[in-house]
């Protein structure tokens, strides 16, 4: 093809992309003269070049579009939605023709008569009279006031009235940049990669020898190559905004087609990443933004009814974080409806009803990543064709990235994508199985565990399938030898190591013979003959010159077998949460305050230890306060007679929960010990003591933090009075609360009241306990928890044939309006208690426990 045409195509494609953005901007801000001139000039340039190159069809369409734009510019035609739609349509036609030229080298056949007639009608004011469409103008203005940031188009800033198709070279910023074909850069990158490898080999050889003549020049070579590598990588970097340039147009089209108001906000579009990565994420990103606009954002009426502003927001945000790029796509739309996902998941048969019951809301939401899963009720022109998030996820995982989603029904959805900066060079762990070494990308490696014949990390098996206990969870194992169809060594070989990898939400261990080092490797594609082997993602040459295969954790995961993703996800969610039982040892902070025995408080409750000098302590009203982290923190003396201390520094234990803090003034901090709390003598409530316990052979008073919290903030717990001390014959209470603060506070309190308390962080974990056959006399559950909420938890427990169907269930929440009470009762809670009302809690569980 003609070089001139090539050049024209590259330039025009760029201009058209810029035009798409500009036109949408113009629609929102019709008064912007600069913008108008720029659009006009871009179009004019295209027209001029068409005429010069002899492209009559293209020229005609551009010419008639230019006419309409000319009237915009003169101000004799208002920028209306209809006419902008028409202009965009014309641009699409131009793009089609340009694409045709790129393919065949000449203009494709086609009739533009109808389009041109419509453009002319607007131009001549036939069908679209100038109307003072105040409503449109206003809403457009309000859109603009929220400042839509759109990628800087790659055109020079316009000069007033500049219509010259060719800019003067001296002022042209293009003079400082060159258009280089991507292929040239790719070749450069390949060669630099080779150079890096050769350098590594040289360094390795040199390291094996003593000081020699080559050392100094080799060092220099080393530096130059590193810089060269960086430089070449830099040429491949492009701002992520390039991948976003089509989005404003897409969102605009969605808003028009579906009658929605959507504001697209793009942040961090200057964030750079490798061109190759950029290409690969472009489509997934577009798809997701389209989804947000189509499924996420509701119609203005629906938004109004839900008490949200009519205009929906989609925010794209990109930033660097430790060698990775994070891209967030969030909308304030309707969020994912777990119920319809649940229904759909059952219909499509991905899960059984039984599996669903044990799943948290978050896990259920993950189903949208399953193949062919769309919850859109109707297929629209925009999306909902069932090709969806599974493809997005696959594409992102293909480039070694991860995608996560959080969604709150009615509030919106946020996707977080994490991708490597570049694909060319990755950090990998080198392992050995049999006679060969393999590389495992570091990004999916969680940890390394050495197998021991006895002791904790013992290899066990179930019907020949190897498993291992890792921190009280069962980790499925797969032997690398086995998946590579190599001879199996004796199980439990003492030198074996396990590499714990995570793929999506699934964790498993790969047994290898040996683990070497991590190395920066240059990923090279495998030859076509070997492409079909799914467990290899590429190969590379190590520093010693040998070729090794790179294992693809996704491929390995697919061989792990029938571990259904859903179940694995449930397990991994639970794995992160640790069970804390009050029978077990607790870290205690021992301090002295006032006369008598030393005092102890669970360390987990103390957020910080501080020292304040006396002059920092101020008196407000009749309370002592101190300025702490920009806020006033009340200080409470441990005993009233402590105020005597006038000099020196004051030791303070800081307790905080969410944004509230209080300081407890003590005389001296003694020690931190790990002990079982076994409160022997119940103290007389009200004095801030739970009772006495023997810690390291000495009697220590266990402090009731709750008492002091209520002194500091009278509303922290409501009215506080003595805890009811009763004997409950060791009834078992299960406490489900995601806040460690409340867990740590309520557990000792209930312990003192005579209950045996088991605490868990999530409903899911509680359900796991039920699966294990644990039973309780009373269950106390928080309402607002990540994952499965308290309501869902209650519904699950109260469903048919659940083991804990009969167990009394008490809700504990900081929200305690009558509506909440009703909702709690409806969900199956026996009682609903405000979180700070300890007395009510103790009373209720005593009653329920007796009734049960």
């Amino acid at each position, binding site marked *: 093809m003609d070089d001139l045409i090539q050049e024209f195509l590259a330039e025009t494609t760029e201009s058209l992309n810029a035009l798409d953005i500009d036109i949408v901007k113009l629609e929102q801000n019709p008064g912007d003269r600069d913008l108008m001139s720029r659009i006009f000039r871009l179009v004019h340039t295209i027209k001029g070049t068409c005429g010069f190159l002899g492209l009559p069809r293209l020229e005609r369409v551009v010419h008639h579009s230019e006419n309409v734009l000319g009237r915009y510019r003169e101000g004799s035609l208002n920028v209306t939605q209809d006419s902008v739609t028409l202009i965009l349509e014309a641009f699409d036609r131009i793009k089609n023709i340009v694409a045709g030229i790129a393919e065949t080298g000449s203009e494709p056949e086609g009739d533009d008569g109808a389009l041109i007639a419509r453009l002319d009608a607007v131009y001549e004011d036939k069908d679209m009279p100038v109307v003072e469409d105040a409503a449109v103008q206003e809403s457009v203005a309000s859109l603009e006031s929220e400042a839509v940031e759109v990628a800087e188009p790659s055109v020079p800033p316009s000069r007033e009235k500049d219509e010259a198709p060719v800019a003067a070279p001296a002022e042209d910023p293009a003079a400082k940049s060159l258009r280089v074909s991507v292929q040239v850069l790719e070749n450069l990158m390949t060669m630099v990669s080779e150079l890096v490898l050769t350098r590594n080999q040289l360094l390795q050889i040199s390291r094996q020898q003593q000081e020699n003549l080559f050392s100094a020049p080799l060092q220099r070579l080393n530096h130059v190559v590193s810089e060269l590598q960086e430089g070449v990588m830099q040429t491949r970097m492009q701002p992520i905004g390039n991948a976003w340039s089509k989005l404003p147009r897409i969102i605009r089209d969605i808003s028009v087609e579906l009658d929605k108001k959507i504001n697209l906000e793009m942040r961090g579009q200057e964030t750079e990443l490798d061109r190759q990565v950029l290409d690969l994420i472009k489509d997934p990103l577009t798809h997701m933004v389209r989804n947000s606009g189509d499924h996420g954002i509701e119609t203005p009426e629906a938004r109004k009814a839900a008490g949200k502003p009519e205009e929906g927001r989609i925010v794209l945000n990109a930033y660097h974080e430790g060698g990775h790029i994070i891209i967030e796509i969030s909308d304030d739309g309707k969020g994912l409806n777990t119920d319809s996902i649940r229904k759909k998941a059952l219909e499509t048969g991905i899960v059984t009803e039984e599996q669903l019951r044990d799943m948290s809301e978050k896990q259920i939401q993950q189903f949208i990543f399953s193949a062919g899963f769309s919850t859109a009720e109707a297929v629209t022109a925009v999306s909902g064709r069932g090709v969806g998030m599974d493809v997005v996820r696959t594409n992102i995982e293909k480039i070694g990235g991860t995608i996560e989603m959080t969604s709150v029904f009615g509030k919106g959805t946020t996707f977080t994508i994490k991708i490597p900066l570049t694909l060319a060079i990755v950090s990998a762990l080198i392992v050995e199985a049999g006679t060969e070494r393999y590389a495992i990308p570091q990004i999916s490696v969680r940890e390394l565990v050495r197998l021991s014949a006895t002791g904790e990390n013992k290899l066990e098996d179930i019907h020949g399938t190897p498993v291992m206990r890792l921190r009280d969870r069962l980790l499925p194992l797969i032997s690398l030898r086995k998946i590579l169809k190599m001879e199996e060594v004796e199980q439990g070989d003492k030198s074996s190591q396990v590499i714990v990898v995570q793929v999506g939400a699934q964790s498993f261990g790969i047994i290898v013979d040996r683990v070497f080092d991590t190395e920066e490797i240059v990923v090279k594609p495998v*030859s076509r*003959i070997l492409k079909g*082997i799914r467990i290899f993602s590429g190969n590379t040459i190590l520093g010693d010159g*040998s070729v090794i*295969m790179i294992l693809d954790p996704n491929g390995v995961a697919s061989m792990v077998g029938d571990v259904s993703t859903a179940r694995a996800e449930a397990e991994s969610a639970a794995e992160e949460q640790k069970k804390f039982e009050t029978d077990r040892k607790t870290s205690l902070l021992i301090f002295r305050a006032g006369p008598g025995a030393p005092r102890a408080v669970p360390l987990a409750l103390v957020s910080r230890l501080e020292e304040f000098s006396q002059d920092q302590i101020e008196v407000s009203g009749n309370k002592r306060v101190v300025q702490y982290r920009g806020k006033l923190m009340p200080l409470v003396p441990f005993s009233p007679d402590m105020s005597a201390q006038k000099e020196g520094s004051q030791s303070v234990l800081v307790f905080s929960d969410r944004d509230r803090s209080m300081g407890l003034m003590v005389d001296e901090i003694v020690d931190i010990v790990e002990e079982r709390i076994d409160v022997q003598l119940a103290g007389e409530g009200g004095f801030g003591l739970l009772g006495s316990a023997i810690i390291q052979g000495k009697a220590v008073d266990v402090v009731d933090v709750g008492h002091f919290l209520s002194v500091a903030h009278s509303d922290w717990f409501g009215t506080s009075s003595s805890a009811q001390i009763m004997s409950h014959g060791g009834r078992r209470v299960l406490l489900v609360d995601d806040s460690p603060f409340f867990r740590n506070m309520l557990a000792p309190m209930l312990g003192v009241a005579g209950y045996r308390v088991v605490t868990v962080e999530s409903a899911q974990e509680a359900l796991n306990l039920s699966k294990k056959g644990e039973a309780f006399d009373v269950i106390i559950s928080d309402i607002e928890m990540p994952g499965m909420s308290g309501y869902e938890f209650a519904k699950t427990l109260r469903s048919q044939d659940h083991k804990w169907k009969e167990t009394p269930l008490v809700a504990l929440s900081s929200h305690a309006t009558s509506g909440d009470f009703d909702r709690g009762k409806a969900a199956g809670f026996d009682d609903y208690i405000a979180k700070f009302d300890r007395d009510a809690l103790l009373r209720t569980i005593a009653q329920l426990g007796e009734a049960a």
Partner: protein
Amino acid sequence: MTGQSTKPQTGDSKDFLTMTVDGQVFGIPVLQVQDVLGEQRVTAVPLAPPEVAGSLNLRGRIVTAINLRRRLGLEPVAEGAKTMSVVVDYQGELYSLIVDGVGEVLSLSDSDFEKTPPTLDRVWREVATGVYRLKNDLLVILDVSDMLEALYSRDHHAA
């Protein structure tokens, strides 16, 4: 030369690199040959088709080694016997053919060319373009592209 046809044309002569496998002389067009190597350390690739001996590093490029004996359904070489490799470029990728030995380059006249005998073993027919009548020997011309294409389309031994 990438992907170049090995079909000979009449009234001309062509240059071939000769090599031996289990006593049989083979030839490949000399223009396809990138390199001739001695014994190489090859990294085995598990799960690969059986004739793939593994991968090796040739001046920073990764080469897929193909064991011609295995491809032709022959017994492996005797323990300790030396092998050689002929490196060819096919569609931008390098392949090394492991053979028993490499001979000279012969310029052969097209008039000595014959089609592959239809009675030949199917495995051999798959990889042969034809035969040249040499004075004391018969030279089988290997069709590198057919041989590799057959491997591409073959079902892989992957999961």
